């Protein structure tokens, strides 16, 4: 197949709220805009059950519906989309930035990185191998498969405790494995979990391996203080280990990142690389909300529009 080249005024990597808000602004300002995402449009919003704190909706709106509306709104103003796309190469350091998908190379002088963040993987054996057949990342989705059974929850943050509360309505017992001596979740939620008679907890432990044994799952966890390995058998394992920024794609660039891997950007969303902007959950910031992502995307878009 021949290689194809396409040029845009702006390319946005990531079709979550930050990227879509930017696309709405730049497309309305007649900048040719391409949005690329490795999945469908919507970012984390699309998988949020109900959004109740987004202004303009008196009643809660389903996350997937809000995401679809944002995408359709951007498309109506002329935004082009490359969704479910696998980026094979990206070049950010030169004035002319390029993104390669299959045999097509897209070029631009302005790019917004709005790749968001993803659930953190533990990177231990068995985690991916048994996904869906003993290891789960969603209590809402898979909790009912473990009705009246014993489950293990990995994590002690807000997500882990909120999902644990849901699981406690269904399961026979729930064992939390947490790396610290106290839970990081908000106290009110954490206490509800800790005070439930079905809950057990392994403090200062970290999973090292998940093994399938017949219908059961075996967790091998290390006591971080004594280095002793304990073995815990349950019917299923739910992992909620926080979030990580999606910046792997940019590892070969000179982009400045924080120690945690988030992109550093100024108040105009400009990064250290000329013509490269960051918006949404992927950048260093205090609050990660739909509204703050929309704000970032808007600022990045306006910064680019005003340069014309």
């Amino acid at each position, binding site marked *: 197949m021949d290689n194809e080249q396409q040029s845009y005024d702006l390319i946005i990597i990531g079709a979550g709220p930050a990227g879509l808000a930017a696309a709405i602004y730049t497309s309305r300002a007649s900048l040719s805009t391409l949005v690329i995402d*490795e*999945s*469908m*449009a*919507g970012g984390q919003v*699309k*998988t*949020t*059950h109900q959004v109740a704190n987004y202004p303009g909706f008196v009643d809660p709106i*389903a996350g*997937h*519906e809000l995401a679809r509306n944002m995408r359709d709104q951007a498309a109506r103003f002329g935004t082009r989309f490359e*969704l*479910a*796309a*696998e980026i094979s190469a990206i070049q950010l350091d030169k004035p002319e930035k390029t993104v390669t998908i299959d045999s097509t190379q897209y070029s631009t002088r302005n790019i917004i990185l709005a790749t968001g963040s993803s659930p953190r993987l533990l990177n231990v054996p068995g985690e991916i191998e048994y*996904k*869906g*057949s*003993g290891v*789960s*990342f*969603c209590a*809402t*989705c*898979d909790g009912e*498969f*473990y009705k009246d059974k014993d489950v293990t929850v990995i994590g002690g943050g807000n997500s882990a405790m909120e999902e644990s509360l849901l699981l406690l309505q269904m399961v026979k017992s729930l064992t939390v494995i947490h790396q610290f001596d106290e839970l990081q979740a908000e106290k009110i939620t954490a206490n509800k979990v800790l005070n439930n008679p079905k809950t057990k907890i392994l403090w200062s432990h970290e999973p090292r391996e998940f093994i399938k044994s017949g219908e059961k799952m075996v967790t091998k966890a290390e006591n971080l203080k004594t280095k002793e390995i304990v073995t815990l058998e349950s019917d*299923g394992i739910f992992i909620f280990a926080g979030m990580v920024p999606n910046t792997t794609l940019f590892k070969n660039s000179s982009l400045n990142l924080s120690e945690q891997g988030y992109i550093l950007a100024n108040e105009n969303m400009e990064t250290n690389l000329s013509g490269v902007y960051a918006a949404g959950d992927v950048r260093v910031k205090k609050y990660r909300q739909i509204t703050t992502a929309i704000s970032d995307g808007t600022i990045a878009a306006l910064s680019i529009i005003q340069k014309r």
Partner: protein
Amino acid sequence: MLQTKLTTLQSKEELTNLIAAEEKVAVCCGRMGPMCIPVYGIFEVYEEKYPEIKFRNMDFDTPDADIIKQLPECRGFNGLPFTVYYRNGKVVKATTSIQSAKQIKDIIDEVFA
């Protein structure tokens, strides 16, 4: 009700007739949950990219979804959605839980090439 742009299979008969009539069929059986929605979205994109493949979804809670749930290939599945790929009426691949666009593309390349 599944709120997607995919055609939803309403009954066992619809699925049986579809896999009898079409060589390449992919069915995502789930709910409107966080693990299922991305797969429906990727199917929507791939529906345009791979017109020879019939992409469908099915409500996991409809009794007729037993035709998917009780497949031997889905035994031991404990994560939504259950996604099943049929070629010439036979199951050629089944996956449990969320899959990325790349994983789905790899399966398509593997079983529908």
